[in-house]
């Protein structure tokens, strides 16, 4: 009996220790990756990195100013396309569709689309926007990113809108406000913070995307602010430079990696902080 008990206790301890180890596994790699991104990326953080265009191989200096602005431009365009569409579709699911068959199908498709391979989205946009319109462009890249962003925004918006209690809606309706006004001025207001954090996360996620941009926004060695022209992005630059032959390129690729990782982590942590406060208040 006591032997049996000792064995059970041993198994228990081993299993619980294993669960601790598996938690450490993920953290170990997180630390390892971040450490290297910092170590190799920080030395690239010079003023020129943010202000100058890339120099040709063999010429010292230069920066990735064009890729930084390009990432901002494309991500902003994608946000402009994807977020309103996503919020409105989410509104339909939460305010009108609810339990209808149509709404559940849309929900289901969204969950599929969330995990759809992003490279396939790139191929789709290439066939839809790049080839027929005769050129790579920031807009094509932004559309690809917007497609990736869309389902995330829809589901977040729906979830956040649903958290607003029906009694709030009923109270506003009882005052004689039309349904759309209730949605825009009451329900949206109530769900604002949740939606904002969801949107932030979606934007952060797509700003780190590479695969859908390879055949859409392409790349550009110069400044570009025209939505109709090929545009450099940090992620595509990492892809090209990491595969290139020059040490200087590898350094710049690490620099770009540092920048994009820092951006994504900061946004994610901020959003998490906001939701934590929210959840504590709500659930």
């Amino acid at each position: 009996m006591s032997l049996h008990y000792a064995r059970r206790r041993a198994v228990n301890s081993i299993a619980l220790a294993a669960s601790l180890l598996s938690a450490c596994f993920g953290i170990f790699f997180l630390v390892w990756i971040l450490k290297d991104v910092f170590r190799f990326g920080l030395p690239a953080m010079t003023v020129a990195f943010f202000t100058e265009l890339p120099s040709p191989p063999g010429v010292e200096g230069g920066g990735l100013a064009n890729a930084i602005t390009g990432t901002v431009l494309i991500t902003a365009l994608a946000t402009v396309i994807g977020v309103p569409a996503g919020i409105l579709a989410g509104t339909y699911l939460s305010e009108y569709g609810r339990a209808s068959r149509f709404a559940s199908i849309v929900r289901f498709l969204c969950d599929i689309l969330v995990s759809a391979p992003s490279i396939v989205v790139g191929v789709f946009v290439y066939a839809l926007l790049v080839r027929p319109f005769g050129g790579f462009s920031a807009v094509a890249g932004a559309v690809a990113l917007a497609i990736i962003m869309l389902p995330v925004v829809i589901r977040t918006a729906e979830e956040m809108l649903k958290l607003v209690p029906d009694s709030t809606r009923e109270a506003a309706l009882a005052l004689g406000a039309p349904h759309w006004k209730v949605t825009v001025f009451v329900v949206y207001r109530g769900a604002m913070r949740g939606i904002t954090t969801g949107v932030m996360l979606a934007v952060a996620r797509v700003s780190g995307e590479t695969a859908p941009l390879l055949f859409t926004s392409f790349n550009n060695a110069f400044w570009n602010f025209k939505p109709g022209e090929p545009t450099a992005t940090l992620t595509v630059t990492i892809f090209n430079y990491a595969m290139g032959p020059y040490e200087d390129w590898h350094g710049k690729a690490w620099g770009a990696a540092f920048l994009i990782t820092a951006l994504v982590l900061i946004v994610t942590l901020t959003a998490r902080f906001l939701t934590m406060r929210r959840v504590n208040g709500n659930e």
Partner: protein
Amino acid sequence: MKKYLNILIVLTVCFGGASIAFAAGLINGAGATFPYPLYAKWAYEYNKKTGAKMNYQSIGSGGGIKQIKAKTVDFGASDAPLTAKDLDDSGLIQFPMAVGGVVPVVNIAGVKSGQMKLSAEALSDVYLGKIKKWNDVKIASLNPGVTLPDDSITVVHRSDGSGTTWIFTNYLDKVSKGWHEKVGFGTAVDWPTGVGGKGNEGVATYVKRIKNTIGYVEYAYAIQNKLAHARMENKEKNFVEPSMEGFMAAAANADWKGTPGFAVVLTDQGGKNAWPIAGATFIIVQKAPASCANTKEVFGFFDWAYRDGVDMAKSLDYVPIPQPVYTVMEDAWAKEVKCGGQGVWKR
């Protein structure tokens, strides 16, 4: 919501304004990776001199051909010449910008750069998987005095489509019947053996990292990565070192004017010092361009590069195109590329 609308309006105005402010011409080109450092250097200097922007992206030769056919760029670039028929079918012309060479590189303990000698037969048999070990008699007989290990050969090739592969396999196709029947040539082929590295750099990395390997890279990459290259037996049975002179010798006898579509192939050329795995790298443009103004800029840029870019080319280990050849090319530009019946290019 209102706030959102405001942001939207601000963004639109910003981009609209920026579009006007930055209206200076941007020329897009894409294609071969081999001449990328050269084109980037030229574009950089040209931009400093004229303010014109040439955006060249190295996506690979196949990509260059595809994108110019789809008119998504103003010019394409390829290390593999298109055939005259292909050019006619797609309404394109091509012209050479520089000459370079592909170099077999090896990593064998104790074998120094330039020490290993290879014949056409030995190289093709290694890549066919017929020669499996470094001390095979076919290699050993070429290399008396070199200690070759009794180890398996790891063959490295490109995993992506590439003009380098085109030149390399075109050479093997010419010199080896077995290769011609089994594999053929192209920017990507069905390799009988080996591992694939992405880009010249991928191949260089594998060769550096793995023992008893052989790979092939562009000359500049072999130099940059300090890889041990092999000497090759050329058509006149001389073992030659890869060098600018060797590439120039391979290009010396080429008949540019008489070759339809200027589709000159420089592998396995005669000439005492000719490096056998050489090739020209080409620019491809539409005969009836989507944007005439851009194509005019393209010609302006390459005209400048032919004339004023010679020293830059040499400093980066590229063989420039000699004056008699580029005159022929510029005549072809003037004659063949038209917009609304008018020639696009006038000197």
